[in-house]
């Protein structure tokens, strides 16, 4: 114990070192736990939703209407094994929940949806369907699906229904995964930077403690025992700092979870389910291991590795070259990130050597005091190699995060601008006729731009794409005007918007065009309202990553049988007040209170949410940059302090 106290007395003499170590560990644990907690939740949500519906099929109505509880009862009474699945989308952080009817699943046998390890449909996100239905309201929309076992064949279905693959949303491809990989990479960088900083501070302390170690050796304390005590010292310090760090990290994840969930859902249609994040064990083990590895990995071991020391800079140059090549040619995200990591490590190792060699080369061209000064600088570069690399990484991370956030932000804002082009939109009440509202708006000549949006579904015929019929969102807009003609078209036929307005074809979104290999001029087979028709593709519009297939058509040119699931009027009020328009529409529809949305405030809210989402990444970058900078300054200060006697000699 006395020995431990004697060793630890170093930190009484240098409390700043202890504080720096503790702060680094707490901060790194907070940031890493926060990031990994959020990404773990998002991945678990994704995996859960995929697992829950893997290989399942559902029944849909041939007439395109949404299925209801009545359909469920009718089908069950006809002897068909059908299970209701009510998905309620709640704003994050509450997350989506799925209502299931445990009474109805018995006929699925061991093919029950969502089953994994025998504990299916228990606990979040699964609820009794009655509880889930109670959550459904305007802000928490619900979608009912009727699942059937995969053994059910089309021939067994009653008339009016057909089978369709069941999925909770369109495939997101690598979009969502790239978002999460970015966060993963940030988490790893935080670990790396912290490891370098912790090592530099700890190694500095060890240099200062050399005399103490020598003294202890003279008193007969074996070096192995001293080493064990130092290890224990760091284990205790790491454990004490990791626990509050984890708690702070989880708090950070909880605070930022809402915005994160909304961004995931808004950008990638990836729902953030109501699932728990990770526990305390993994962050604790990772952080303590990181601290111990950073502090106690012997550099001589590295030097002894066969080939490494002999290879010298050529090894790192080869690694740099390999990394650059991988970044340039690899098609997959994982290899791309691996390539970037190789570039980072190689540049990190080479930079201090390069700086030192430059100083050496520079000093060789001088004499006297200048020679001494430049040699000192070379020594300084070698001593500060680790914090320099950490700072370098931190700066790179700031740039990368800024690029990431800017890219996402641009996409998000462009997407918002596309979807919220008009200043206001008014939902057409269920019992009202949209045409009455259209007539009213047409009669108000002082009104700005406006159009009616009817949203429904259509099916691509098999001939158009990969074989199986594909369901897509259909947006019917009338009249085609400035609110939509401002959309960015990636490719189009000449005078595409006029032709769309004239009903000469439809437009498709980018994701659908990519998936189905569609281009302007192609003919597209579409079943709308039960009627199959051919439409010319007039253009492909940017969808900013929304993976659902979309068709944009002129409303007045669609078959009469088309039954929209949702209708709204988008408008810029122009010289009329919104209150007046609302009053007029209320009268023509003979409705109660209308649902009017102010798109500008929605846009402001969405931007706020976006900023909140990336607050985490910005926090990581700023804090690590501050950490790296402070560490570098501290190291420099210690370096010059330790050599102060040397400088004093010069003055004498």
């Amino acid at each position, binding site marked *: 114990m006395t020995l431990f106290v004697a060793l630890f007395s170093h930190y009484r003499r240098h409390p700043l070192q202890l504080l720096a170590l503790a702060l680094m560990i707490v901060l790194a644990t907070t940031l890493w736990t926060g990031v990994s907690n959020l990404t773990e939740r998002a991945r678990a949500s994704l995996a859960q939703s995929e697992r829950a519906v893997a290989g399942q099929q559902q029944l849909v109505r041939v007439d395109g209407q949404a299925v209801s509880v009545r359909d469920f009862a009718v089908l*069950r*009474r006809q002897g068909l094994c059908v299970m209701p699945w009510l998905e309620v989308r709640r704003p994050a952080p509450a997350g989506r929940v799925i209502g299931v009817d*445990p*009474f109805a699943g018995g006929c699925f*046998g061991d093919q*029950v949806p969502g089953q994994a390890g025998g504990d*299916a449909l228990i606990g979040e996100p699964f609820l009794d369907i009655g509880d889930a*239905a109670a959550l459904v309201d305007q802000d928490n929309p619900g979608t009912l699906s009727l699942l059937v076992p995969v053994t059910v064949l089309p021939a067994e279905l009653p008339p009016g229904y057909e089978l369709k693959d069941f999925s909770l949303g369109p495939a997101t491809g690598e979009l969502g995964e790239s978002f999460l990989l970015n966060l993963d990479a940030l988490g790893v960088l935080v670990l790396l930077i912290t490891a370098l900083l912790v090592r530099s501070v700890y190694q500095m302390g060890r240099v200062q403690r050399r005399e103490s170690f020598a003294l202890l050796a003279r008193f007969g304390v074996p070096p192995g025992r001293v080493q064990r005590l130092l290890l224990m010292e760091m284990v205790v310090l790491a454990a004490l700092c990791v626990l509050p760090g984890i708690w702070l990290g989880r708090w950070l994840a909880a605070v930022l979870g809402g915005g994160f969930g909304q961004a995931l859902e808004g950008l990638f249609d990836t729902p953030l389910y109501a699932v728990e994040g990770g526990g305390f064990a993994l962050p604790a083990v990772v952080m303590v291991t990181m601290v111990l590895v950073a502090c106690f990995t012997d550099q001589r071991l590295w030097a002894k590795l066969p080939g490494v020391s002999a290879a010298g800079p050529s090894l790192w140059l080869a690694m740099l070259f390999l990394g650059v090549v991988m970044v340039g040619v690899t098609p997959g995200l994982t290899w791309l990130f691996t390539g970037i990591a190789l570039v980072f490590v190689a540049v990190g190792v080479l930079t201090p050597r390069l700086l030192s060699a430059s100083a050496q080369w520079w000093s060789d061209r001088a004499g006297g005091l200048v020679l001494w000064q430049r040699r000192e600088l070379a020594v300084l570069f070698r001593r500060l190699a680790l914090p320099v690399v950490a700072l370098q990484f931190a700066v790179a991370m700031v740039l990368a995060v800024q690029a990431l956030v800017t890219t996402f932000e641009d996409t998000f804002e462009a997407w918002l601008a596309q979807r919220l082009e008009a200043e206001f939109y008014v939902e057409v009440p269920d019992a009202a006729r949209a045409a009455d509202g259209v007539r009213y708006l047409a009669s108000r000549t002082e009104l700005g731009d406006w159009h009616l949006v009817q949203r429904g579904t259509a099916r691509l015929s098999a001939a158009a794409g990969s074989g199986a019929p594909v369901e897509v969102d259909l947006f019917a807009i009338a009249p085609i005007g400035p609110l939509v003609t401002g959309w960015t078209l990636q490719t189009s036929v000449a005078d595409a918007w006029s032709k769309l307005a004239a009903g000469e074809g439809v437009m498709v979104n980018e994701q659908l065009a990519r998936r189905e290999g569609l281009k302007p001029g192609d003919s597209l087979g579409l079943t709308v309202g039960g009627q199959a028709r051919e439409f010319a593709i007039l253009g492909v519009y940017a969808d900013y990553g929304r993976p659902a297939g979309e068709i944009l058509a002129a409303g007045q040119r669609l078959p009469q049988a088309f039954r929209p699931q949702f209708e709204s009027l988008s408008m810029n009020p122009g010289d009329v007040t919104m209150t007046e328009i609302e009053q007029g529409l209320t009268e023509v529809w003979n409705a109660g209170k209308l649902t009017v949305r102010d798109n500008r405030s929605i846009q402001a809210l969405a931007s706020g949410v976006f900023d909140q989402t990336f607050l985490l990444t910005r926090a990581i970058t700023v804090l690590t940059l501050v950490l790296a900078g402070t560490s570098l300054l501290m190291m420099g200060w210690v370096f010059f302090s330790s050599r102060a006697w040397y400088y004093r000699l010069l003055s004498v």
Partner: protein
Amino acid sequence: MMGFPGSLRRAALVLCLALSACSESPPSSGFAGLDEQADAGEFAQPAPGDRLRFPEDFGPHPRHRIEWWYLTANLTTDQGEPLGLQWTQFRQALVARDADAPAPAANRWPMEAGWMAHAAVSFREQHGFAEKLARGDIGQAGATAEPFNVWLDDWHLQALEEGQWRLQVNGEGWSYDLRLTVQREPVAHGDHGFSAKSASGEGSMYFSLVNLAIAGEVTLNGEVHRVSGLGWFDREWSSQFLKAGQQGWDWFALHLDGGYKLMAFRLREDEGAFVSGSWINANGDVESLGAGDLLLEPAGWQTSQHGRVPAQWRLRIPPHEVDLLIEAPAGDYWNNGLFPYWESPVSVTGSHGGVGYMELTGYGG
């Protein structure tokens, strides 16, 4: 149901909530929670003096907590082999509701009542059983008095025309489609339909159609059997069926030579038992039997998959010089649903020959 453990457990928990309101261990807390104490302020409780009303009482009683429609049949195949059938549908309410009150909106997937249907077929010492569950008020399960119809999914017992019913059930590897002819007026048990279940007054409203003529088809493993025979249909409802501490019941419905029918049950209590029954002659005249008139005791025990069960019984009614030995055929007749119980056809020898059905709950496990 095999291979469906997660959902089944949840369903069991929900049904346990639905059918017994709180019991954590369904089989041991009394069959289907019948011994749970009803909230007198919420549910109506049958009492002496209550009367039956037809045809309304063939339909549901939403002010009462529990009720069932129950049919057993002792049939013979066209090859002359005996075949037994059972079909039961339970309704268990969580919320009491007046008969004329509107039902909750179906699109809210209400859980004010749960339904459970059981069906079994016993043939050549084999016993097949199936169970279905549903929530009420969404159309998947229900009952109406006029036209008479009781259904859960595609299982249903429904009136076709005056005095003619049809029962259709599909189990795994077996099914039946039967025509039932109602041959006598309903028989009211106990005091004009109030059937006491304990000396302290708990009881139910209870009536039976004791002489159904049945004909139809039973399909077993793809083989179709034409069948005919006798059936027994029970309607019973209550809110507090059993007294706390009653461990289970032994129930018998017998078709005896000479057109006699006999319903008898014994509710086992911590000390002794509560015994009751109805002796019905060929004209349909009913005589209620109490402990002094009806002696009912096990005469032989059988080891089964869930432990020992009394598969043989001696039943005596001294005033009518009835002395019967009731025996289940060889085999294991457990209905292995959420609440396992024994349900077997029986043969009767002694002072009268006959056939019938026996239901035993609270044994095993």
